[in-house]
């Protein structure tokens, strides 16, 4: 530990600590409260960008195909996520419709867009336009995307309806499952420290 190593403060307990060099895949935790301070990800930017691109494709599929269908008396009734939101809206449950729309469509979409906006120009060696505001939007949006909770909710409602009719899983069900894993992977690989380092290097 050298005296010239840069200082960082724990975001959860404010304790000042010296940065230490990390082996690949290592994690640094706060010495007092145990919060994760930073971790090292080899090729974090490239990996995050690749996972984000895959997630965008799956997001598009997941939102344009039906999630589940009910087969009843020879009839197949299907619902997509957007149709679900619209039904809630028509049922005069506008606040619930807004909540479902925001947490499963708007926020994940914003997260993926902001990620691409920040990472793609950096990958090409340019500084992204409006880097700082977009970065702050990304940080604000992330807790509100709840694709994984939606996934569990769909599964529970399928069990609940299973006695009524035959259930037909739709394309979007599988896409949401994969999207859930990809977004978790994006969150795990994303390294804001490297991002800021690359931006100051480009500038």
């Amino acid at each position, binding site marked *: 530990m050298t005296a010239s190593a840069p200082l960082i403060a724990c975001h959860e307990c404010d304790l*000042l600590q010296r940065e230490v060099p990390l082996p690949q895949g290592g994690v640094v935790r706060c010495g007092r409260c145990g919060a994760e301070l930073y971790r090292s990800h080899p090729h974090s930017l490239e990996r995050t960008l690749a996972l984000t691109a895959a997630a965008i494709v799956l997001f598009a599929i997941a939102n344009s195909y039906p999630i589940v269908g009910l087969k009843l008396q020879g009839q197949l009734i299907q619902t997509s996520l957007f149709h679900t939101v619209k039904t*809630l809206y028509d049922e005069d449950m506008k606040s*619930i419709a807004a909540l479902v729309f925001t947490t499963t469509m708007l926020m994940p979409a914003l997260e993926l867009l902001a990620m691409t906006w920040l990472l793609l120009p950096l990958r090409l060696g340019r500084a992204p336009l409006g880097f700082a505001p977009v970065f702050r939007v990304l940080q604000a949006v992330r807790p509100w995307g709840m694709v994984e909770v939606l996934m569990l909710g769909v599964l529970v409602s399928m069990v609940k309806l299973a006695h009524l009719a035959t259930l037909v899983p739709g394309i979007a069900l599988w896409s949401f499952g994969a999207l859930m894993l990809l977004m978790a992977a994006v969150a795990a690989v994303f390294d804001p420290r490297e991002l800021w380092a690359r931006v100051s290097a480009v500038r």
Partner: protein
Amino acid sequence: MNPVQATAASLGLLVCHACGLLSRPAPDSHDARCPRCGAHLHFRKPDSITRTWALLITAMILYIPANLLPMMNTSSLFGSQSDTIMSGVVYFWTSGSWYLALIIFFASIMVPMLKMIALVLLLVTAQSHSRWQQDQRARLYRLVEFVGRWSMLDIYVVAVIVALVQLQGLATIQPGPGAIAFGAVVVLTMFAAMAFDPRLIWDPVEKQHGRNTA
């Protein structure tokens, strides 16, 4: 190997909550901004305890109608039926899907309640500058932040069921007023957890230390 035992705030340094940069504010500025990303800077989240209490108390009040009012109203040829969160749990339990009954019971009843109890505990101990179990309280705060989103589960269940059953004409299922109250509880407790500043858990250490050395 003596670690630097000082907080950023005690040395007059501000941490950016968005990008993590440490900076020293200009001595005469009221509105400090991060020199790197432009976010507003504060030594501690402003009015953290008051805001958290306000959001938390609202959530506690709404937790009552969320559990008493129906989440779903079903009407069919065979009559109509109202389902609260608890009756949904009982339905799954008696129909043999005990694992789903447990998931819903935890996500919809236990998690919001434990989350509110945990926030009360964090607020009361922070307000009394307690030094009791600080590392456990820090862990509790991280758990509250992590687990809160899963309570949204029941909202999605209601949404999907309403959308699917609406179309088939045999029965109509409508979301009940309990769903609105429940959604509000989830969102409010998430905002409450965000308003709480975990650094308040550790601030009494500084004060104690300052007193001892002074």
